[in-house]
């Protein structure tokens, strides 16, 4: 089957499942008895396994299968959630993520078998991380003689895995018919010796031996999987035969390297109840089952669910596993559809084209409107209508592209948990504003920079618990990430209540590392010193850890964020902590802009950044520290002459008054001196491409109605 066309869906969905696993594992770590989480995890692992199987990713399937087994044991109450177990499960999850990443990159799952993780999982499965191993073997040993002697074979619930098989209606019917026809139905679970090299061949021989006596109705794993050796050391079968059970057992045992056979005869009720194990009819087996499980659970150090609960838990488990075919859906039908992001890109490009065409029409209409006849009046009206429609269309398409930033933040709680263990610090991550929406492209790319900032806080920011308690701070350090919208920007603050940046230490380091001469370094003000931290190749870490401090970090953060059209700044107070403030544009493609003339050239300034436009007499300009400032409603604002910043051609202008566009960034304001205002326009942002390097204050270009290219000024870069 060609599954290539499903690859995208597979990747999307497996990512969702992995995320669900991650979230719920974290919950489970805090609250090991959270049944909802256990069920959710089981469901996600199960779906993952199914998808991997469909797509033919054998290694991924095996790993998810083992993971699922562990969860099913937890759910069944045979295993308890320990911090050790959570660690292993996280490792398994990482390995699963690894497969999915490899698949995303290469469409293939790669060669990594992750044997060690599987072995660890296996250890837990075989009895609480090794402890239970011996006990179980003893039990097995004690039981096998009995088995050999008399037919009523071991019905040790641990061994009788056939009881867990969920029978399909058709299979039940066949079995019931057999019972009615006076034949016998047996369930068996066959264990092959661990040392066996040819499991598939042994299993095949077992099948052959059994089929000589009767008919195999059900096998788990499927006979195909068994042939492909896709099973561990056991497989379960249901057999319809006229022969007595001991004859069948003997036949199975005649195959060499078969260690043990568990089996029993089934009657109609048992057929009906198989896989549910709730023992609705109160059959012996169910009772026996419980009595064997409970002590075992206790011996494995108190089960997650107290011994009285397994029954309820199992009911939950069976109901969801019997619905395998139709995975549990949320009751409320979701009003969303999945759309390929490429299609949205095409749509967005078309809207951009439309706006450029509309701008062209607007400028032609403006030229025509000189003749004041009714025709040109009509054209102007229609063009205005078109303008409002395209603006609304653009907003709608943009909204479609907006997704909550949540998806970029989901992995952080897990990351902080891992760092906590690695660094031996105690920390608490608080995230607010996950629902803040951003363009999908930005959300996709903001994860890495934010991760760097969080690691930075965890590694460099927070002190060790000893230092913290010495300073009278709570031992658990807090790290926060707050996202919110501010005008046309989205702000993401990442910070901690740790040590803060020691400006003097950084200054010393700059000198020590010969990054600047001592004289230069001493002249820097605090902000400039902190800015050095963002320079490529400068790292503060006293020792290189594998968390941060390889000289790649803040500079990468900065360049990544700038690529998204945003910027980053720091607020820090020694001893109290630091906050990194990331500012991102709400949209990448189309903005409302004020068009201005500087030296005869047209420039666009994003309207969202503009506070006011002022007419200032030249005489009001003052000099402070040799820089031009004006006083505006009580505050002092620095003046930036755009013609100087842009090396614009000198032109003659009215020397008495200056047109000052006041722009804001956070709390600070600046006044940009322009020659002329040309009005507001919707502009489509185009990149200048990689070939041409320019000043940071030029963030892109746009095509005007008459086909001319105008550059866009990023006023945030002027601060």
């Amino acid at each position, binding site marked *: 089957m060609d599954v290539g066309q499903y690859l995208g869906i597979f990747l999307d969905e497996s990512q969702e499942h992995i995320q669900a696993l991650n979230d719920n594992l974290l919950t489970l770590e805090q609250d090991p008895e959270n049944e909802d989480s256990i069920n959710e995890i089981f469901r996600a692992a199960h779906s993952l396994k199914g998808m991997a199987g469909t797509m033919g990713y054998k290694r991924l399937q095996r790993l998810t299968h083992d993971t699922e087994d562990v969860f099913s044991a937890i759910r069944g109450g045979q295993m308890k959630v320990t911090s050790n177990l959570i660690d292993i499960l996280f490792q398994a999850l990482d390995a699963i993520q690894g497969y999915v990443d490899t698949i995303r990159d290469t469409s293939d799952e790669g060669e990594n078998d992750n044997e060690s993780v599987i072995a660890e999982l296996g250890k837990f499965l075989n009895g609480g991380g090794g402890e239970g191993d011996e006990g179980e073997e003893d039990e097995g040993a004690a039981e096998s003689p009995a088995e050999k002697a008399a037919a009523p074979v071991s019905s040790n619930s641990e061994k009788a895995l056939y009881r867990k098989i969920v029978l399909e209606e058709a299979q039940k019917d066949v079995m019931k018919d057999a019972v009615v026809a006076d034949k016998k139905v047996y369930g068996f679970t066959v264990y092959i010796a661990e040392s066996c090299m040819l499991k598939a061949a042994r299993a095949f021989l077992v099948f052959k031996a059994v089929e000589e006596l009767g008919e195999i109705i059900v096998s788990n794993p499927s006979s195909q999987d068994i042939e492909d050796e896709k099973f561990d050391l056991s497989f379960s079968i249901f057999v319809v035969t006229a022969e007595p059970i001991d004859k069948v057992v003997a036949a199975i045992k005649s195959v060499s390297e078969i260690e043990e056979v568990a089996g029993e005869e089934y009657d109609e009720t048992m057929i009906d109840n198989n896989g549910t194990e709730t023992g609705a009819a109160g059959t012996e087996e169910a009772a026996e089952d419980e009595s064997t499980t409970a002590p075992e659970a206790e011996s494995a150090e108190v089960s997650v669910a107290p011994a009285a609960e397994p029954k309820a838990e199992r009911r939950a488990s069976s109901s969801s596993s019997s619905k395998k075919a139709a995975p549990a859906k949320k009751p409320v039908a979701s009003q969303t559809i999945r759309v390929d992001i490429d299609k949205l890109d095409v749509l967005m490009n078309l809207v951009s*084209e439309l706006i*450029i065409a509309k701008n062209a029409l607007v400028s032609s209409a403006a030229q025509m409107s000189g003749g004041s006849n009714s025709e040109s009046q009509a054209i102007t009206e229609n063009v205005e209508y078109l303008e409002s429609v395209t603006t609304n269309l653009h907003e709608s398409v943009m909204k479609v592209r907006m997704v909550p930033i949540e998806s970029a933040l989901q992995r952080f709680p897990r990351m902080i948990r891992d760092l906590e263990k690695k660094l031996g610090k105690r920390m608490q991550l608080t995230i607010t504003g996950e629902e803040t929406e951003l363009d999908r492209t930005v959300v996709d790319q903001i994860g890495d920079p934010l991760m760097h900032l969080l690691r930075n806080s965890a590694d460099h920011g927070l002190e060790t618990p000893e230092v913290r308690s010495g300073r009278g701070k709570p031992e658990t350090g807090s790290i926060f990430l707050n996202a919110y919208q501010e005008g046309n920007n989205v702000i993401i603050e990442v910070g901690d209540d740790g040590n803060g940046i020691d400006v003097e230490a950084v200054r010393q380091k700059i000198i020590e590392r010969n990054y600047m001469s001592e004289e230069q370094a001493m002249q820097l003000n605090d902000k400039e010193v902190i800015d050095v931290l963002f320079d490529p190749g400068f790292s503060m870490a006293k020792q290189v850890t594998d968390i941060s401090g390889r000289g790649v970090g803040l500079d990468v953060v900065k360049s990544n964020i700038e690529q998204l059209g945003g910027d980053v700044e720091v607020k820090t107070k020694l001893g109290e902590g630091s906050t990194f403030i990331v500012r991102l544009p709400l949209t990448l493609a189309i903005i409302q802009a004020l068009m201005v003339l500087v030296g005869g*050239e047209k420039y666009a300034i994003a309207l969202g950044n503009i506070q006011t436009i002022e007419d200032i007499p030249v005489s009001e300009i003052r000099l402070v520290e040799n820089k031009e400032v004006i006083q505006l409603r009580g505050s002092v604002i620095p003046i930036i002459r755009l013609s100087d*910043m*842009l*090396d*614009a051609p000198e032109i003659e202008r009215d020397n008495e008054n200056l047109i000052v566009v006041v722009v804001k960034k956070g709390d600070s304001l600046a006044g940009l001196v322009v020659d002329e205002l040309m009005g507001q326009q919707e502009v489509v942002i*185009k*990149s*200048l*491409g*990689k*070939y*041409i*390097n*320019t*000043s940071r204050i*030029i963030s892109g*270009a746009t*095509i005007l109605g008459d*086909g*001319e*290219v*105008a*550059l866009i000024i990023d006023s945030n870069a002027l601060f």
Partner: protein
Amino acid sequence: MADELRIIDNDITQYIVVALGNEQYGIDIKYIDNIVRMQRITRVPKSAEYFRGVINLRGEVVPVMSLRVKMGLPEGEITGKSRIIILKVDQSGSIGVLVDEVKKVYNLRADDIEENLSHDSKSGVQSFISGVGKVENGLVSLLDLSTIIGEAD
């Protein structure tokens, strides 16, 4: 017969020959996306001096460099013969080069091209030259586009 033809086809590279003052340079036709007339160029502040600015090419913003300045020649006059050659070297977008004139297309066989140039002849210009092609009335320097464009970074 058919085989022979194919071999000959593979052997021939087409070059567009452009003029910069009195000198002629060849540009491999496979990198050329388009040739457009001179049009309004928007200056980009603080960019490298050989960049004239950006143009609107069918709705895309494309940077344009002056091949003269890039090659170390003085900036020339814009005339009716000036052309912007739009190059597409890799996936990452187009770039235009401004030339004085586009002359004609030459078919050059591999043995008409001399690739081993001695690197000690006059200016630094030849670092942008990948070889010299023999044409009926003289020699054409073949431009190494990856160095010309690559250095813009």
